Every structure is written in C-alpha cells, then in structure tokens.
C-alpha cells in the first residue's frame, strides 16, 4: 500500500516537472482565466497552465459568467477568452485593458492581423479565425460528374443529382440549430443590411424574402431534423457518410480525417462558401477568437497575465495542435482545413457585424425563423415579426428611443 502511494507521489512530481518544461519561465502571480470550452481553448489554457499558478475555467456558460466576472472590482478573472460578438459588452462597459504597452514589451512575435483595435487602441489579441465554408465529398461529386458548386443555385442542382443517385441519406447537411446565423449569412450574401438610421430594423425587404426562400429550398435536401442539428451532429453525419455537402465550420475540418471516428478519411474536401447570387459574396461570415486582459486588476497582475497568455499562444502550442483550428499565430502551417476559410475570405466574405443591436437582432431572428421553416408563417410575416421582436427588445434596452 505504502509503495503505491510512493509511486503515485513520484508520478505526480514527474508530471509536474514535465508540465513546467513547456514554459520558458515560472509564473508566480496567481491568475484565473475564463474561456469557452472547445478544443482550441483546451489547448491554449493547457499551454498557459504550464507556467504555473494559472487556474483555468472552461465553461459552457462563459457568456453568462464572463462579463459579470470582469465587472467586479477586483475582477474575478484576469484573462478572458472572447470572440467576435462576446467582446462587445466588455468593450462597451470599459472592462478590458488596452494592451499596446504590453505588446511593445512582450508581444514582438504578434502579427498585425492578430490585433483587434478599437478607437486606435489594441484591446484583444486574436488567436484563430473560424468561418463556415463548403465541405463536400470529393468522391461523390467526381462519380456523379458534378463540379464544385460556387453558388447556391449550383448547390441545389448538385443536391438534386445526388438525391436522384441515392448515394447518401441526405445530400445536404447543416448545423441549423443556430438558424439565425444561417439567415444572417444568406441575407448578407444577398447584399442585405440589417439596420437603417436610428437603429431601426430593416430586414423586411425583397432580399430578406429571397434569403428565406433559399433556406427553405435547401431544407428539402436536408435531414428533416435540421432544427436540432448542432455542429457535433453534422460532423457525425459527415463522418458516417450520411451527407455529401454542407456549409460547415472550418474548425471541424480536422475531424473528417480522424481515423478513430471517421469512415470517410481523405474524402472530404474544402472550398469557399457558395454565394447566393452569381458573382456575389459568399454566404458566410468570418469569426475570430482571442484573449483580453481584465481592466480591474493591478499592473503587476496584468503584466503577468499578458506574459502567460503569450506563452499560451506560442509556436509550440500551435505546432502541437495544428488541426484544431485555423490559427493566426506565427509558426502555423496552414493545413487543408485552412484552405476553405482562406478561399471564403478571399471571395469577399465579411467579418460578422457584431454589435449590441446585432445581438438583439440575432435573438429576434432566432425566435421567429423556425416558424417560417416549419411552414407556420409566410416569409413576409416572419420578417415583420423579426422586426417587431427586435423593436420591443431595442426599446427595452434603450437603443431605440
């Protein structure tokens, strides 16, 4: 018994020693991080923890806890993991620390396209980008003689052919549990705008109707349970060979070639997201994930937090976790996963237009769009309902007088 304890203790010491080896220095300031819980964050917070004294909180409820935690004085967290939209409330309430001085001191390796600037000050450092783009089964498309679709009209023709051939359960897949994002992508692809002067909503127009109609046409080729399909489910459908094409997250590309789970290793290829109209911009938005440092902490803590964060976002981490994301960090060699995202960006897809009002718009879309897809409301009424829901919320939060 005693021997077991001894071995256990020895093993723990050994592991601790190994853990220390990943960091170039030893951190002595006690730090706490608050991030989302997906794979890339596991890798980054793991790399940060190697410096010692870092407590990582990876949580599903990050959007509920983070802003509240940053708002106390002293802040509950030192380092926060944010994305395109979740940084908005932090910036609006002035809860993040400008990083320019720390970058000058410790951040020489950062690339200019990693910096998120607001009113001329750097507030966040991006580590990865993500976008939905076309993933397709190359073998199926070749066999049926279909060219890789670049517009949604071509997607529909291709889907029809695949359906006729009956090679997969459903020609199209999609993580439509977040239907609002699909609508935003499609509507932006048609060149629509969400707001007019005075933060009033402006989605009830011909472009909105066109986007909705196109979405309904796509659902005819999808698994009828599309409204409960999240990314993991779609990924699983791809891996089990049940779907042939999907406008799907770049961060999921690595999993298609995972031999432990996938039955279609090497058969799924990436391309730019299709555009709704010929020559138009792709129906996709670009997202980034990165870190911020809390404002309500001491100078020493902020400095320590920034150094630890730089260790988390270093070359070694990226090279060890190449397939988890499309990294922005120096030393990343773009794999096949990055191809789709890069082509989508090159084809003119825009960053997601995150803002306070867009957050309200997003909720309004999310709560009304299912009624259209399930046939309970026609397109015009759905768009009118979206505008009405948005207006109620915007008046309550004071954005619209």
């Amino acid at each position: 018994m005693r021997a077991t304890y001894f071995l256990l203790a020895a093993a723990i010491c050994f592991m601790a020693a190994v853990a220390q080896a990943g960091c170039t220095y030893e951190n002595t300031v006690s730090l706490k991080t608050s991030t989302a819980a997906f794979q890339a964050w596991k890798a980054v917070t793991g790399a940060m923890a190697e410096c010692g004294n870092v407590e990582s909180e990876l949580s599903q409820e990050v959007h509920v806890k983070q802003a509240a935690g940053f708002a106390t004085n002293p802040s509950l967290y030192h380092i926060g993991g944010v994305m395109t939209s979740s940084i908005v409330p932090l910036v609006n309430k002035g809860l993040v620390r400008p990083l320019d001085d720390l970058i000058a001191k410790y951040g020489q390796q950062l690339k200019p396209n990693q910096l998120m600037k607001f009113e001329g000050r750097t507030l966040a450092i991006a580590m990865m980008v993500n976008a939905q783009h076309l993933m397709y089964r190359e073998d199926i498309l070749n066999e049926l003689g279909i060219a890789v679709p670049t517009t949604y009209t071509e997607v529909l023709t291709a889907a029809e052919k695949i359906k006729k051939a009956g090679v997969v359960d459903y020609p199209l897949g999609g993580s439509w549990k977040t239907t609002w994002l699909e609508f935003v992508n499609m509507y932006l692809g048609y060149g629509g705008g969400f707001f007019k002067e005075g933060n009033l909503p402006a989605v009830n127009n011909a472009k909105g109707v066109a986007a909705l109609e196109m979405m309904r046409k796509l659902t005819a080729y999808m698994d009828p349970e599309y409204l409960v399909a999240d990314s993991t489910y779609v990924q699983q459908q791809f891996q089990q060979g049940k779907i042939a094409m999907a406008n799907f997250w770049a961060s999921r590309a690595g999993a298609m070639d995972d031999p432990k789970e996938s039955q279609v290793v090497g058969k799924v290829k990436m391309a730019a997201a299709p555009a709704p109209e010929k020559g138009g911009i792709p129906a996709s938005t670009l997202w980034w994930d990165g870190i911020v440092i809390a404002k309500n902490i001491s100078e020493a803590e902020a400095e320590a937090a920034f150094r630890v964060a730089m260790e988390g976002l270093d070359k070694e981490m990226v090279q060890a976790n190449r397939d988890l994301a499309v990294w922005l960090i120096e030393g990343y060699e773009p794999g096949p996963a990055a191809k789709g995202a890069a082509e989508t960006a090159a084809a003119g897809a825009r960053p997601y237009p995150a803002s306070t009002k867009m957050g309200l718009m997003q909720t309004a879309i999310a709560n009304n769009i299912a009624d259209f897809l399930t046939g309970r409301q026609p397109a015009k009424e759905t768009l009118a309902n979206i505008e009405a829901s948005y207006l109620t919320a915007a008046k309550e939060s004071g954005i619209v007088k």
Partner: protein
Amino acid sequence: MKLKTFAAFVGPSLFLMCLFIAAPLVNVIWQSFHITQPIMETVAVETVTPGFLTSTVTVEKVTRPVLDEKGQVKTETRFVGLQSYRNVMASEKVAALLEGGAWGEILKIDFYKALRFTLTFTLITWPLVIAFGLAVALAVNAAVKAIRGPVIFVSLLPFIITPVIGALSIRWLFVGDGIMTAFLEWWLERDIAMFAQGWTIEVLMLFYRIWHVVPFVFVVFYAGLQTVNMDTLESAIIDGASRWERLRYVVVPHLMPLIVFISLIHLMDSYRVFDEIVGFTSQGHVISLQWLTYDFLTPDDSGNRAISRAAASSMLTMIGIVILLIAPMRRTWAQHKGGQL
C-alpha cells in the same frame, strides 16, 4: 405552542427561505414594473477586426452606453407600470387579432405558444401519471412477495436518475437514426424523423415526463396500499362488491389524500416544465413558460438581457401556478384546521 417557541423552531428554515427565495422574489416583482436602461450615445468609431489574410478596418456608427468618471455605466431606472407585461403578452397585437377574428393566429405569439404547451403538458401528464402510477402500485401489490423487492428497485430507477442524463438517454434512442427510430421505421415501414415536427417532440417530452414521475407516484401509492383497511375490504367482499367496485369505493377513497398530494406536486412541477425543452432541444418547435423566462434572462452573444420582460413573464408563470393550486390548497386548509383538535 407559544409564538416564541414556534419562532425558534421555524426560524432557521424561514431565514434561509427569506434570504434565498423571498428576497429574489421581491426583486423580481419590483423589476417587472420598472425598466433600467443605460444612457446611450451614438458615435462613429474605427474598428480593426483580425482576419486570416489581413485585418479589416471599418468605421461605423456605434450605439453604446455612456460611462461615468468611475468607469461605471450610467443607468436610469423608471417606473413603467404594466408595460413589460404588455410586451410579454403582446396585448396590442392580440387585440388587433381578436378584432380581426383571427383567433388561431394568437397561438403563434411566443407567450401564448408557451402557455398552450405548458397547459397541455401539465393537464395531459397529470391524469396519466396518476393512472399509470396506481396501476403499477396495484400490480406490484398483487405480485408474489419474492419479486416485489427487485421490481420496486427497477421501478425506482427512472425517478432517481439525474434528470439531465435521463432525458439524454431517451433522446439518444430517438434522435437521427437512433435505435428506437430505426425500430419504428422497420416496424411501420416508413421514414420517421422524431425531431422534425412539433407534435412528435411533444409526445417524446410527455413520454419522458411520465417515465420520470411514475416511479415516485407508484412508491407513494404503494406505501398507501399497505395501510388499506383489510376489514373494510373484506366486508366489501361479503357485500358482493366486484374487484372494480372495491377499487372504486374502498381503495381509491383511502388513497385520496395521497392523490391530492401527488396532484399538488405534479401540477407545480410540470407547470414549470423546462428540462425537457433543453434536453430535447425543442425550442424551434415548442417552448414552455419557464423556457421563455430563461430565454429573456440569458444574455445573448453581445451581453443583452431582457430583465424586465423576464420578471414579468415569471410573474405570469407564478400567477398561473397559484390559480392551478387553489383547489388542492382549500383541502389542506380544512385538514390543517382539523389537525388542531
């Protein structure tokens, strides 16, 4: 018992309930009549967004809260009366629809959609749970002694299991090509997608709730059956009462207090239906009142939350529960007064 002694006994419990339930409740009531808004300004700012190839520079008009000298968001709170309630209940729209005679359209508004589901869910599961629980209790009571232990054990499982896990275990059987869906497809020889339309999800949710609650009802009734007066039963037999009549006139009246107890608990719990909505991700098709409140309350990606509407909607939920509970409560009142003797 003197008031002072009574207070000493009840005090700690009361203190906890006041601190953690009553105080938030008062807050909720207050919030439902007020609106707190940050003071907003609209300014043009330049934003640089990171990107894979290059960063994107945009100059946009941004509406954002004004900060005071301490860096806190300036807010103003005002009394708005029933405005939040009107927002939740969409009263103007309902009035317009009523005038136009389009009654069916009302059920497409969120609040009424949620109310419709919550009420049907509560009122359908209620009799089913009691009938099914009683049936299991009678069957176990009639079974041979030797198998009762194991049967009670197995029967209790759906109740004790963590609700999140229970809901997921049922979901996994049905979602996509889960084995139960595959079985149904093979049996009925047609394509089935259980999560593709509202009513099948509702059936699954009803099934899950009944599956989860029946063990509790069963064990309560089973305990009650152990105390049925044998003499009454025997005299009923002598009077020539059939099995059904004995059940109807002796057993059920004996169990009546328990039926009231179960109804009370069940009405309350099923009116708050929430776990099922999350567990079966049904929000695209059906929503419940508590889910509606939760949805108002959870911040979206950009940190907005509709606190006043959430407060109003939870007040409306509570009013509903209180109405449902009036009947069983009057019984308890009579009994309480009786217990004083």
